[in-house]
């Protein structure tokens, strides 16, 4: 009995162990960070999860999406409509939004794969779909068109209504739960046969087909998972922000904010989006505060609007130029290459040893 338990524990993969560790460590974040710092932490966690969801498509399935705002907005608006108009809990909105995100993903995926849109054409199609939803949302009166929707304020805190006091750490915990569920889901998916098929189709579609994999099916599964998990993020974002309007939900800004952590951290790696999100948001904070309060010899920079963004952009260009696989991706790759070389050397020396023995 004890032995099976031990074996079961040792059978937990590295990623799952790290997820548990991160979850435990993050529980203490609100102890050290309050106010605007907790805000920063909350955004890091949110965009780490969103970008991880995006990474299923862009990284693992090789389907670069420039329009993830579509899924995000569907989740946000499903929740907003149910809560603000119908008075239904965001927990329901979360489920409805996720299903909506998955279905929209299937639609988008089926149309693009059916007509074999690849590369830049696929990227542009995802962008067009998000823009289309944006335009529809602007004119659609049941969700209040361009005006947007607000979270009705309740008197008491409640997990069921996902509503807490403005400075409550529970919003951070809410995002943390979202991140952990997303990571566990992705880890399970990518370790499963289905996930391996998705990567096989990305690596070589013809070879995958010859081994009995239906590429359309594999890609649709990836898009549906990515869409559902991204839509879930929309729900949490709406609850956190108390407000949603079409540009916030479906605008290209959101698409970029979702994809950047993955690109900067490392596409197709499990931890890339997480690393990228932390890096990007902290970097953004630092450049903003640097321009707001520059050191004395640079005091002429103070208060120049947009300068922080220019600096931020320059740093991004630098990262992409020098670390094309992303920050985490590059490190992981170097480590992998070193490990392979060590194995190679060990094998070579053991072969030599055997040869010498034989010579004796």
């Amino acid at each position, binding site marked *: 009995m004890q032995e099976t338990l031990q074996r079961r524990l040792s059978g937990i993969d590295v990623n799952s162990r790290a997820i548990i560790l991160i979850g435990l460590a993050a529980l203490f974040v609100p102890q050290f960070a309050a106010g605007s710092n907790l805000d920063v932490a909350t955004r890091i966690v949110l965009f780490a999860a969103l970008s991880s969801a995006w990474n299923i498509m862009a990284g693992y399935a090789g389907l670069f999406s420039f329009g993830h705002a579509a899924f995000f907005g569907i989740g946000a608006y499903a929740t907003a409509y149910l809560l603000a108009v119908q008075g239904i809990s965001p927990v329901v909105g979360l489920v409805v939004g996720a299903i909506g995100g998955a279905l929209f993903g299937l639609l988008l995926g089926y149309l693009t794969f059916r007509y074999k849109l690849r590369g830049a054409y696929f990227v542009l199609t995802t962008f067009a779909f998000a823009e289309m939803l944006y335009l529809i949302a602007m004119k659609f009166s049941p969700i209040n068109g361009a005006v947007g929707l607000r979270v009705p304020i309740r008197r008491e805190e409640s997990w069921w209504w996902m509503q807490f006091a403005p400075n409550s750490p529970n919003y951070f915990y809410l995002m943390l739960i979202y991140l952990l569920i997303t990571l566990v889901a992705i880890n399970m998916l990518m370790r499963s046969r289905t996930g391996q098929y998705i990567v096989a189709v990305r690596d070589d579609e013809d070879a995958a087909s*010859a081994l009995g994999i239906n590429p359309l099916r594999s890609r649709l599964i990836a898009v549906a998972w990515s869409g559902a998990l991204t839509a879930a993020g929309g729900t949490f974002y709406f609850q956190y922000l108390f407000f949603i309007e079409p540009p916030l939900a479906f605008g290209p800004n959101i698409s970029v904010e979702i994809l950047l952590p993955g690109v900067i951290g490392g596409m197709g790696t499990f931890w890339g989006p997480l690393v990228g999100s932390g890096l990007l948001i902290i970097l953004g904070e630092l450049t903003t505060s640097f321009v707001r309060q520059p050191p004395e010899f640079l005091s002429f920079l103070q208060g120049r609007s947009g300068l922080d963004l220019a600096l931020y952009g320059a740093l991004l260009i630098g990262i992409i130029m020098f670390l094309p696989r992303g920050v985490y991706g590059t490190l992981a790759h170097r480590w992998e290459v070193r490990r392979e070389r060590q194995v190679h050397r060990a094998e070579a020396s053991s072969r030599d040893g055997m040869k010498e023995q034989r010579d004796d």
Partner: protein
Amino acid sequence: MTEASPGSEPQAASNGPLLEITNVSKRFGGLLALSDVSFSVQQGTIHGLIGPNGAGKTTLFNVVAGTFAPTTGKVAYRGADITGTPSHRMASLGIGRTFQIMKPFGSMTVHENVRIATYGRTDSTEEASTEADAVIAMVGLERWRDRSAGELPTAGRKRLELARALGLAPNLLLLDEVLAGLVPAERKPLIDLLKEIRSTGVTMLLVEHVMQAVMALSDEIVVLHHGQMLASGSPRDVIDDPRVIEAYLGEEHRHAEG
């Protein structure tokens, strides 16, 4: 190998040929790449498909593998029409193929590559892993098991192509120039391996440029030239056929002059 593969269902026509190609033609725009090709492959044999460059070997291979449908004609497997069946359904029929230009899943290890194939035969990942190891051992890639497939040298990649196809536990194996690009010293062990695979009862259709290999392996040979069947029969008959000699010699003359 342990479980009954989907390909080993009761045979529709137990005495008929395993694969039957009837009057297959394929037109690419103005080019008639294949013209009225017919032959059949018996269960348990190795069938060689040869011809000079541009003879239509690869086109015919792709028609059989389901990469594209023929313009006219029919491909039957175990008596059932499989013309135009999408390539991902071929695997479940028990038909495996390799690619002339090797296509490893570059982000995966050798073991993971083969496991993609063996996944189709079992519901358990553990079993799929065990099966993959058995195939890896058979093709002699144990030493490379946990290495990235992208790192394999050419001879290793050829074996990986073969291993993945074998991972399907196929009844019919379509091999597209598995020996091309190898130095003679590397060919011999691979030829032995193919013979070993035949001895397990796998039928093979072999597209090959390396004459000596085809002669050594094939029970039957079909020679294509300009998309047409030039000759067919046993290796002995074919090699003595003056039309075959002319087609190949003509080719070599052109090479020598060009």
